[in-house]
């Protein structure tokens, strides 16, 4: 039984057999109630959390709290790669539109195409909803750019304006320690200083 649990813990990222053993002995010897609570919470979460029917993020309800919130600006749609990206953007507090979560990024070599990412669902969303701007917030990797380009083509079909989040020097960052690709990117995407004053 312990062995079975050990294997189950090993499924977690960053957990090997040794850490799993530590968890198990801790729970068995010191915190049985905690172990039971964990088991209960885990079962409940695994059974009840599904994908939001609209934006595909993780949610207990059919519609996630962001999609269900009427106060949000539904004309803006921000496309991200994972649910944790939503969390990151929400924490910044500057965005009040809706989201759409892909299941990762396009990777032709791995055979991951449009259907695997849920891009068909994005297209049906664009058909029925009045979206006036798609914000491409996929990662600044080649794969993220490829995905962004694909969505741009899709949006063009429905005559929706597409924007891409800016990439460049991180705040508090120093040029000297920034890699050349980022510097090249930041320079080519420079903005008129007027907007700051």
């Amino acid at each position, binding site marked *: 039984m312990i062995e079975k649990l050990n294997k189950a813990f090993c499924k977690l*990222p*960053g957990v090997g057999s040794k850490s799993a053993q530590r968890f198990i002995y801790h729970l068995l010897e010191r915190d049985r109630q905690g172990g039971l609570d964990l088991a209960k919470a885990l079962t409940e979460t695994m059974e009840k959390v599904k994908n939001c029917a609209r934006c595909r993020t993780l949610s207990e309800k059919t519609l996630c709290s962001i999609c269900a919130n009427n106060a949000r600006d539904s004309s803006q749609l921000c496309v991200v790669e994972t649910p944790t990206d939503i969390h990151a953007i929400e924490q910044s507090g500057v965005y009040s539109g809706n989201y759409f979560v892909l299941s990762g990024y*396009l*990777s*032709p*070599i*791995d*055979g*991951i*195409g*449009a259907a695997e990412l849920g891009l068909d669902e994005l297209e049906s969303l664009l058909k029925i909803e009045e979206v006036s701007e798609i914000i491409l917030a996929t990662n600044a990797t*080649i794969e993220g*750019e*490829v995905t962004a*380009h*694909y969505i741009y*083509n899709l949006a063009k079909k429905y005559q929706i304006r597409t924007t891409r989040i800016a990439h460049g020097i991180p705040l508090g960052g120093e040029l000297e320690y920034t*890699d*050349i*690709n*980022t*510097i*090249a*990117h930041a320079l*080519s995407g420079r903005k008129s200083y007027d907007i700051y004053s």
Partner: protein
Amino acid sequence: MTKIELTPAFLIHRRMYQDSSLLLDFFTRNYGKIRLVARGARSNKTSLQMFQRLNISFKGRSELKNLTNWESSDQPRRFLGNDLVLAIYTNELLSRLLPEAEKHQKVFDGYWHYLIMINEQSDAEKEYSLRLFENLLLEELGYGLEFNKDSTGSPIDSELEYQFQEHEGFVAKVDGNIPGEVLLVVNDDDNDRLSVGHLAILKKLNRKRLRSILGERPLKSRELFFAN
């Protein structure tokens, strides 16, 4: 134990590996296509870019070796839009067609040349450059074609039409879909004489040649971005 120091390479594919590592496919000039692990690289991967000539060091005993060091030996190169599509299509070709650990320096040099060119060329020129790169890749892998001779060994006649047949080559046919003129342009590498219609013919020709080598599984990037 193999230990290689700073050898020229291009990163052609990467995927996540375990928690914090990356599994990287490199096309090296001296060792061909190899797969390496970059341990703990996920948090520090900004300088490991595709489409940029790198120098990489790696070592290891087992088949899967470790990337130990890398530096860029190229200027920053960033592709957007259709250029990006062309570039990832080329990477998919390399990934699918190059055999593991087989040296192909001509393909490596051709690939680099091609990447430099895309940024500067017109759309038609880019398309022709891609065809030339495909031709080079096919030739180096042993599937080369002679563009100045037909299947019987006679010279290609610019007035005749030809059809491409696998294992045979160009066969003169009254209802052929490739004008001899186009083949001679490729043979002479004289792209000034190429029209848009000619480019479409060459695209079809190479698609047919590639299909017979790639087998059943189509190229995904073509499926995604080239609907026609």
